[in-house]
């Protein structure tokens, strides 16, 4: 049991102060993440306002079914992560490792599907600056849509990737009995990060895939 007691850093008075500091710290970090993506959303909003038709045309070329499956995967991984945090809090070590592993698997599945999507885009000559050709009108503006599509999904994908790595590390630590009911802050904070990555995707999905499907 000794391993599951929080090591208190010298600058803190007690475990409660340390945990509260970590919690506030991660939330401030998440706020910066939100604004980080805010730039992309603002660029998207303004460019789409100016080229609505081209964005509709571009969006119709994206793979909606893969994206929908991916959204469901990410939402489910959020559930497994939340259950993992619950398991950590209840001291259920094996359940914790199981839920974290499942989260990693779902995250990897998301990335793999994203990879298939990218490959399909490449085959269809939809990668701006690398290989882009669009037969219809306003090819330049459709290219702008795909530029934003790649920048947004790539940066989001990078966040998923980082999440997968961190959760894997946490899972290994958990299997070595590093956490318990008295100390599971790293699991908790990783979970918060993972949920935020999920939230961002919830906005990316309609922005990029659902424009003018009717």
């Amino acid at each position: 049991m000794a391993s599951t007691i929080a090591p208190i850093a010298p600058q803190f008075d007690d475990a409660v102060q340390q945990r509260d500091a970590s919690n506030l710290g991660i939330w401030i970090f998440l706020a910066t993440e939100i604004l980080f993506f805010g730039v992309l959303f603002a660029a998207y909003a303004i460019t789409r306002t100016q080229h609505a038709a081209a964005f509709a045309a571009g969006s119709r070329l994206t793979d909606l079914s893969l994206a929908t499956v991916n959204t469901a995967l990410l939402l489910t991984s959020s559930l497994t992560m939340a259950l993992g945090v619950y398991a950590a809090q209840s001291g259920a070590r094996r359940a914790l490792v199981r839920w974290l592993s499942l989260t990693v698997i779902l995250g990897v599945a998301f990335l793999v599907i994203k990879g298939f999507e990218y490959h399909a885009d490449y085959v269809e000559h939809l990668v701006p600056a690398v290989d882009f050709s669009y037969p219809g009108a306003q090819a330049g503006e459709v290219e702008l849509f795909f530029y934003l599509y790649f920048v947004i999904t790539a940066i989001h994908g990078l966040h998923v990737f980082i999440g997968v790595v961190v959760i894997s590390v946490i899972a290994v630590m958990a299997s070595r009995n590093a956490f318990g009911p008295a100390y599971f802050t790293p699991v908790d904070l990783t979970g918060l990060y993972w949920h935020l990555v999920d939230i961002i995707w919830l906005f990316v999905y309609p922005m990029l895939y659902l424009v003018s499907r009717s």
Partner: protein
Amino acid sequence: MKSHSLASPRTYVISWCALLALLLLTLGSAYLPLGSLNTAINLTISVTQAAIVLLFSMHLRSAHPTLRIVAGIGFFGIVILIALSLSDVLTR
């Protein structure tokens, strides 16, 4: 700053079901020919989904007000950035 009244697995599962239902709803609504209303519906559903994740999975419902303010400020920042930039673009 009490931040540790976690929700129960039941809550997580229920909110997961709600999120998936909303996903189907937003997907389905996209096929209705509603013009610019489509975007409004999609966005509203996204905001609802985000709120569910924030309140339940991320425990903001039971968190210290400071944490709620911090999260709120992040989203408020985006709103300011987009709203004031658009106020220029739309009135040029």
